[in-house]
């Protein structure tokens, strides 16, 4: 049994199963919630918007974690799926005048449906070769938006996304939107955490570890792979829709192929196979990006006249080098370090 605090013994099954097992857990969780819901009062402007973007990325990252970390269906099309959700929601609110809160679940379901169509290829395709259908999904999404449905999506001109309104209450400031994103992120995070402890989640892990063994044990691997695609892309769609209605204007430029790689790369940096990993991944990615955005213009001023373009190169180089260092020196990600920290904290006076 890993990760049990000292001197805490389970006497009932319900204790054994609980996510929050001890009083300290509960206290920390409540403190965290209080922290989360008071922090926007102190954060100003830019940091608040960073928080919102972290939240939306985190939701999409949960989806990537379910697909890659738990089921090992390598996906190089996640930005495409995120974009698909964003566009579903944008089209529903823009053309049909739907309320955002009805369009949001539809965005998730739309992306899930798209994921299911792409996921049908798992019937024969697996391992490395899953790169083909997923990367195709990304480019087919581009084509659908820019050419096929150009009449409705306005192609590369982009589409406006309405500000969410609930019972006459408009989420039109960063401050209000932060609460919307925070609540949804916590709910989706807990749902993901719970999902991976159920029968479905165990089936996912079995498929990840060895899909032939899983099949022999009677797990319908095709069904569960499709389910992983559907769930992962549901999350992606929700994250995308939330993001789209925050920035209020989207086109396909916002979902580049680079992002699909970053979703998987930062998942590894965060830690594969745990929901905490996805949380760390989203935070690390966006904070690093923000840091780069902050530093790059300064460096550009210092090194002006060298003919290079530091602003567009800094992000790529920094992200690449950081990810490489993580892969080489800590392939199990930040989540692993976090586990080690928790372990040593729990056993504090002793070594083991």
């Amino acid at each position, binding site marked *: 049994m890993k990760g049990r605090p000292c001197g805490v013994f389970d006497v009932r099954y319900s204790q054994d199963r609980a996510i929050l097992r001890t009083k300290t857990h509960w206290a920390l969780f409540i403190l965290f919630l209080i922290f989360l819901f008071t922090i926007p009062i102190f954060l100003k402007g830019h940091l608040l918007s960073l928080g919102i973007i972290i939240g939306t990325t985190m939701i999409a990252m949960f989806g990537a974690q379910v697909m890659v970390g738990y089921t090992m269906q390598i996906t190089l099309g996640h930005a495409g799926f995120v974009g698909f959700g964003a566009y579903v929601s944008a089209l529903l609110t823009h053309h049909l005048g739907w309320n955002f809160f009805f369009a949001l679940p539809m965005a998730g379901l739309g992306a899930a449906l798209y994921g299911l169509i792409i996921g049908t290829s798992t019937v024969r395709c697996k391992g490395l070769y899953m790169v083909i259908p997923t990367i195709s999904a990304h480019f087919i999404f581009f084509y659908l938006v*820019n050419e096929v449905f150009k009449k409705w999506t306005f192609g590369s001109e982009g589409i406006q996304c309405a500000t969410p309104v609930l019972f006459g209450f408009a989420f039109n400031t960063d401050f209000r939107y932060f609460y919307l994103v925070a609540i949804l992120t916590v709910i989706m995070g807990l749902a993901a955490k719970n999902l991976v402890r159920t029968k479905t989640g165990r089936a996912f892990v079995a498929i990840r570890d060895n899909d032939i063994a899983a099949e022999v044990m009677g797990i319908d691997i095709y069904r569960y792979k499709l389910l992983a695609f559907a769930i992962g892309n549901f999350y992606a769609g929700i994250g995308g829709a939330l993001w789209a209605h925050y920035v209020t204007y989207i086109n396909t430029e916002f979902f580049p192929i680079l992002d699909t790689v970053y979703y998987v790369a930062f998942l590894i940096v965060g830690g594969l196979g745990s929901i905490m990993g996805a949380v760390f991944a989203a935070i690390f990615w966006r904070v690093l990006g923000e840091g780069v955005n902050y530093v790059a213009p300064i460096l550009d001023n210092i090194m002006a006249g060298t003919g290079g373009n530091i602003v*567009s190169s800094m992000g790529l180089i920094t992200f690449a080098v950081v990810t490489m260092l993580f892969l*080489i020196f800590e392939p199990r990600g930040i989540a692993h370090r976090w586990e080690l920290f928790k372990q040593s904290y729990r056993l504090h006076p002793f070594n083991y």
Partner: protein
Amino acid sequence: MNTFIQLMISGIAIGLIYALAALGVVIVYKATKVLNLAPGGLLLIAAYLAWMFLVQFEFPVPLAIIAAIAASAIIGWIVERVTLRPLIGQPILASIILTDMIWFFFRGSTFLFWGGNPRMFPAWLAGRPTVLIGKIGVPEIMIWCIIISILTIIALMAYFKFTRSGLAMRVTAEDVIVAENLGIKITRVFSNTWIICLLLFLITAYFVGAMQGISQDLDFIGVYGVIVALLGGLESFPGAIIAGLVIGIVQSMVGGYLAGVLGGGIAETAPFIVMFFMSFWRPYGFLGLERIERI
């Protein structure tokens, strides 16, 4: 009919370019079992190096080409030595993402050193005239591209067939442990594969740069290279060439005949649609090794 032949020739030229890029992926995969998603970045850096020696430093042409070859080989060696060697034995996902990050790193480097403006090769390379074969106008560079690609592929085959290091590479591709027992230095084989890979990208880069100019958009050719390698089967050289030709011709034909009906983006998307359906029919590629798995 003339249009058809014209599209066919440009399809074959583009297809051979894809095939060369894909061969770089296949060579690396066969020897090191790493799926190389980096061709985008490696192609970019090779193209910019070629441009740098030719235009920026104004070397004489033979010297510029030799310098570009040397620089690319050094980059290939460094990439293998610094990033991929520590990852031997790690899960496949790690190496995939690592090669992706090599792509981003070189893409970023080209921005850093050369900025985002498109560059052109000098006129003797980029400005070649269109020649008439019968009544059909064909850009001369495409004919050169077809000839040189075929020669490169033949040279590569000869290298694997007749040289000692080529033989070592073939043994390593077959079984790493056997190769080690036979006294082959695995690490040197790995370095060699990356150097050859970079040289293939350099050849690709000369032609793509001559046809489309050099900019950061070139890494798209690299993405197609990976896809072509996967489509042909990761273990197969003929597969990569066939798949490259198929994708090139499909792209050129669709772009020529269907762009009016289905919109301009169809030329870029058609290969992906083909590929998506191909993953149902032949998930291991045209000539890839169909693995028989056990628990």
